[in-house]
């Protein structure tokens, strides 16, 4: 364990009697000296709308919903102390794979909404979700003029997914109880997701579009590097998703993707394409999103997802 170097601080008390003594003006002069020293040094503030602090991954800004992971188990709504999560769903039957077997029942999510006017940001829903469908993201700029707009419906909650950051690396000395039976963290990224029924792993770009790089999508020089980062972080995110989450019981999460395509998700090419074409697709997606009036960050996240999908030759979450 790399132990932190502790440099002993020189902590001395100021004796009460000494400081309480009556003085004649020296205290006033000392005060002036202190304020002058600050006047002459650089300020420490951040000019908010222009500069923004980078928030840690654990920041409880807003809750994002990964729609396709939700099985309508209602655990979050049950555990919520404020009763601010509204979930509607219905049951559907899936054709059995083999003749003669019973059709399997599964839940389809119709509505998932969080009322942020009620939410107290405790994070219990994120904690209890057994299928890793809810994530915290550090976004905080969603103030509204109308309180009813603070109820974020499924599409808006899914959009927040693009801003989820991969979790921070833990302190080297930490041996959390849930880490004991886990695979190595160095496992290859694509192999780990608990994909059942031969499904495609979740598109990487969707898990983690890093919040920090919001560069212009048309800047060709910057893009490859960014994407490399995206893939890396996404890989890590998937990896840790598996690591931290309680493994989802497979039989309860059939969730055929064809049945519930994300409506707003743009469809990408099914075959791998060249870099330029991928870029072109990304740009189109971005313009389309901006045209629809999406948040630029969301548009940027979708652009990245589309580019990645195009390069890998996979379809969107719908395919």
């Amino acid at each position, binding site marked *: 364990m790399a132990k932190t170097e502790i440099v*002993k*601080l020189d902590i001395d008390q*100021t004796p*009460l009697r000494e400081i309480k003594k009556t003085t004649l003006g020296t205290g*006033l002069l*000392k005060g002036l000296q202190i304020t002058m020293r600050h006047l002459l040094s650089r300020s420490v503030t951040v000019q908010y709308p222009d500069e923004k602090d980078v928030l840690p991954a654990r920041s409880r800004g807003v809750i994002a919903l990964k729609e396709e992971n939700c099985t309508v188990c209602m655990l979050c709504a049950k*555990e919520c102390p404020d009763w601010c999560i509204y979930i509607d769903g219905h049951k559907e039957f899936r054709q059995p794979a083999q003749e003669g077997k019973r059709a399997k029942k599964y839940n389809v999510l119709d509505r998932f909404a969080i009322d942020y006017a009620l939410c107290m940001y405790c994070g219990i829903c994120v904690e209890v979700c057994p299928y890793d469908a809810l994530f915290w993201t550090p976004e905080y700029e969603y103030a509204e003029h109308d309180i009813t707009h603070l109820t974020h419906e499924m599409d808006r909650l899914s959009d927040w997914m693009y801003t989820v950051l991969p979790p921070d690396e833990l302190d080297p000395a930490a041996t959390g*109880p849930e880490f004991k039976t886990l695979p190595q963290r160095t496992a290859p990224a694509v192999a780990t997701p608990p994909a059942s029924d031969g499904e495609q792993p979740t598109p990487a770009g969707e898990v983690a579009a890093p919040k920090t790089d919001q560069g212009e999508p048309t800047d060709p020089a910057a893009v490859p590097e960014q994407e490399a980062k995206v893939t890396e972080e996404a890989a890590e995110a998937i990896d840790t998703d598996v690591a931290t989450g309680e493994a989802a019981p497979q039989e309860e999460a059939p969730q055929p993707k064809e049945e519930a395509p994300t409506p707003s998700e743009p469809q990408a090419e099914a075959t791998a394409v060249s870099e330029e074409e991928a870029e072109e697709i990304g740009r189109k997606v971005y313009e389309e999103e901006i045209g629809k009036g999406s948040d630029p960050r969301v548009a940027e996240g979708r652009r990245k997802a589309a580019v990645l999908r195009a390069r890998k030759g996979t379809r969107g979450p719908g395919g």
Partner: protein
Amino acid sequence: MAKIPDELTKARVTGAGTLRTEEMILNVGPQHPATHGVLRVIVTLDGERIVEGEPVIGYMHRGHEKLLEQRDFRQITNLLSRMDWLSGINNEIPASIAVEKLMELEVPPRAQYLRVILAEINRILNHLMFTGSFGLELGASTPVMYAFRERELLQEAMEMVTGGRMHFGFIRPGGLKEDVPKGFAERVLKGIRQLIKYIPDYENLLLGNEIFKQRTVDVGILDPELALEYGVSGPILRGSGVPYDVRRTDPYLIYDEFDFDIPVGAKGDAFDRFWVLIQEMRESARIIEQALEGLPPGSHLGQVPKRLTLPEGEIYSRAENPLGELGYYLISNGDAKPYRMKIRTPSFSNVSVAPHLLKGIYVPDMIAILGSMFFVVGDIDR
């Protein structure tokens, strides 16, 4: 400066037969810049002299004790941090301790150390806030900005660990919600270092300033016996010279393993209370330093059943909060929710002694006294 003799006050009020004068009743609050929160003080004035001052509370009563009866222990953690919103972690700790003691859960040493570190950071955050706001109430608007500068560094460390800035919700029965991320110790040390570097600035800007001394020395002298009778605790009691600190008298967590002093005042005036407040930040810094040094590797959470169901029983669990003794009287009837949870908050008892201090003083002294009582209205009203 000193208190005005009673006969003099009376003579003025009755006018001594020459001029008819009347007392004026002034409502300070519930919306007033000096009551940080919604506290109302009804003062009867003779000129600018206060004949009587009576705090009226309840403007922020949220019925915590009733709400707690409807929630399980995970949900409770998140509610408790909202009482004294400046010391979230400190509010959560005794509740978890109560559950742990009733269920006989074991808390791993790493979790104990981390709890101490987080609690002491939170104590510093709280004290910095009051350092600044006390200056603000006396008209010095600069120290509060400096205090917030130091606060921000430690606040960032807290956010990095818990994800929250005020309502942490991080302590769980049996340990912590998560372990700390990499780089936590460096962050904390950076914050502590800057704090220690700048504490002399606060002292020179406020404590050492002649105007500040004029305003606080011999103002609002709290007699230690009276303070004890009212259950006053924390920096206010220690300012009166009573070295009562739950961390020492009834050690919880692992506080008995650390070396730290209990600063106590001599006279019990506003100056002493403020001095104690500032010195306590230094002691907290010392504790954090020792705890970071001794932080063992291991798990952050003990063996905890999935669903917390308490056995029947009752316990009074207390802790030294930044503002004084916080206690929970937890009665369980074997359910997942507490049957009754009485919350004994420090600010409630601390402010209840105020009518004794608000007699025969001037209006500005009232501000100095209320400012040096270091209360949070959410903590009074719950």
